[in-house]
């Protein structure tokens, strides 16, 4: 058992996967000598060599495009996109090639490529370094999209994503990189929760809060605050954005009858939209209130001096819970 940060847990997950399978490669900008701008790949090139931990030219489409070629050759590349806002130059390769090639080939090729993306705001960064673009990829057939929220999940989900024969977008909550937890490395992948399962983090009866990635911590803090006022919130860490663990979500919605979804991404056509529609379709007669969304605004991500206003926080979340309870 060791106490590790989320960033370190990803490193450990990468290392375990690389030790288990010589076909696993790590590639991206500055991932080698520097160990990545967040040091997530720290020490990997030293131990596994430049052949397996590849400092790529500064071209994101090239990272994903060559990763596809490497995967076709039998490798399992793990690509690092340095910041969320830098994934767009690779958008075509991800959406038109990585996601669709298996169907195009009628299943005759697999593309076990992982795209790691540090996501979200809250670190006082300049433009393009604080975005939440998960909806684009969750909307794309052929991709799997997951988001970790804590070190233990980061460790296992990294390895599970690499083990998947499908392409996986793995979101890492960058403002939680330095959060710590105890990690028992003796646990095996089989003992970990399945990659595409949601988790009920806190059981409650009055309302359900669904969060993922960086917002999970906020949701848990809100539940603590609500409890002080006598309201018992059930908090679900979604973990898998595509596919959804609908069973866990629907069971909770039926139990509490009230659901609030929270995410940093803009609300319009975000994950909250799909979750609200889905829960309304399947749990209509169990609901006491419409599914509410607490999200970033439908604006470009603001300058960092305004990000605390932009990002959903404990108070905005509790305000939505109150509105739900008022129905």
């Amino acid at each position, binding site marked *: 058992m060791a106490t590790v940060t989320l960033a370190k847990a990803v490193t450990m997950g990468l290392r375990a996967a690389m030790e288990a399978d010589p076909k696993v490669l790590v590639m991206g900008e500055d991932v080698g000598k520097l160990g990545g701008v967040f040091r997530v790949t720290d020490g990997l090139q030293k131990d596994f060599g430049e*052949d397996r931990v590849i400092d*790529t*030219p500064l*071209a994101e*489409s*090239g990272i*994903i*495009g*060559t*990763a*596809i*070629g*490497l*995967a*076709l*050759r*039998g*490798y399992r590349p793990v690509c690092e996109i340095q910041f969320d806002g830098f994934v767009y*130059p690779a958008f*075509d*390769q991800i959406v*038109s*090639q990585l996601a*669709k*090639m*298996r*169907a*195009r*080939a*009628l*299943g*005759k*090729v*697999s593309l076990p490529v992982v795209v790691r993306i540090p996501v979200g705001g809250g670190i006082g960064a300049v433009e393009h370094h604080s975005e939440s673009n998960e909806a684009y990829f969750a909307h794309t*057939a*052929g991709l*799997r999209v997951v988001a970790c929220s804590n070190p233990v999940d980061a460790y296992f989900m990294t390895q599970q994503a690499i083990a*998947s*024969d*499908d392409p996986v977008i793995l979101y890492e909550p960058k403002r939680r990189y330095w959060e710590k937890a105890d990690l028992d490395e003796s646990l095996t992948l089989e003992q970990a929760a399945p990659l*595409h399962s949601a988790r009920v983090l806190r059981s409650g009866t009055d309302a359900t809060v669904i969060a993922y990635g960086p917002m999970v911590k906020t949701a848990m803090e809100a539940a603590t605050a609500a409890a002080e006022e006598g309201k018992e919130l059930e908090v679900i860490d979604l973990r898998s954005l*595509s*596919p*959804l663990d*609908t069973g866990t979500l629907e069971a909770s919605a039926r139990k509490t009858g009230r659901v609030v979804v929270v995410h940093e991404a803009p609300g319009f056509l975000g994950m909250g939209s799909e979750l609200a529609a889905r829960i309304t379709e399947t749990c209509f007669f169990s609901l006491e209130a419409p599914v509410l969304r607490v999200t970033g605004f439908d604006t470009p991500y603001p300058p960092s001096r305004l990000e605390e206003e932009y990002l959903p926080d404990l108070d905005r979340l509790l305000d939505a819970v109150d509105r739900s309870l008022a129905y």
Partner: protein
Amino acid sequence: MTDSALGTRHIPTQGSEPELVQLLTPEGQRVEHPTYSLQISDDELRGLYRDLVLVRRVDAEATALQRQGELGIWASLLGQEAAQVGSGRAMAEDDYAFPTYREHGVAWCRGIDPLNLLGLFRGVNHGGWDPDEKNFHLYTIVIGAQTLHATGYAMGMQKDGAESAVIAYFGDGATSQGDVNEAFIYASVFNAPVVFFCQNNQWAISEPIEKQTRIPLYQRAMGFGFPGVRVDGNDVLAVLAVTRAALQKAREGSGPTLIEAYTYRMGAHTTSDDPTRYRLTHELESWKLKDPIERVKAYLVRTGKADQAYFDALEREADGLAAHVRRGCLEMPDPDPLSIFDHVYAERHPLLEEEREQFAAYLETFDAVDAHDAGDR
């Protein structure tokens, strides 16, 4: 220091004849080139001619099938047969090709049944052949995207220590794409065993080459740090020699090469296109004089390497192939509606399973109606 040491090159002005590697003139005269030589047996020569004729015949049949409503669209390779056959035949078995959507001649050389290509253009699949069976990747429609896949694949070969190379196909229009330029950079920096084979057919749909570049395309390679060469793309012998040399260089660990096969798209971009809106007939007429097949025939006839019986037999073979393509196309079944859900993911996906189940149940309601109607009759 001289100009040439500084890398200064003569840049042909507009209208001047391009400098290119040629081993067989448009008139069918065999010529030598100081750098690229080719030893070729009469059998091999007749084999190349056969490829050219058969590939053109398949293309003509597919165009006819489109006109008759059997294909949604067809991208003709008319005029580019030598570029494709010459480069396709230069490949070794373990080499790997990443094509665009027009590489029917390369597909032929790799042993892909033309019916596999027609499936895509008929709309029964998006390709669907097993790329690893013939080391011929699926057609890529997004312009230039496959050059990065080719480069990555070559990087993988390099890691495996394989003595093979990759050939990436693309056109003159694609050279403006970011992906192609990124592929050049990755290939150069990692010294990947990949040959970039650009068929400059002078037109990107309606845009002439002048809209893509101010310098001859092969000269772009210099800026990326590897050699570029322009070859007469309508000369199957020169293309074969130049591509063989580039592939061998790649296999030996000497990195990428850009080959610009200077050719001409004699047909429309696709069957949906109308070239009369943007180019003059006399241009086409001038390129007809440089036809890739006629020059080989002239050479074979003049040197007595093939007789009339050979040409007659080849024509019968082409007729047979065309009949195979036609019959196979007409007999191609529409896919099962529920196959939409197949092969999207390698592993289980609950949403697709749910949608499949719901759609199947919905379709069954029609079966019930049909059964009811049948009972009425």
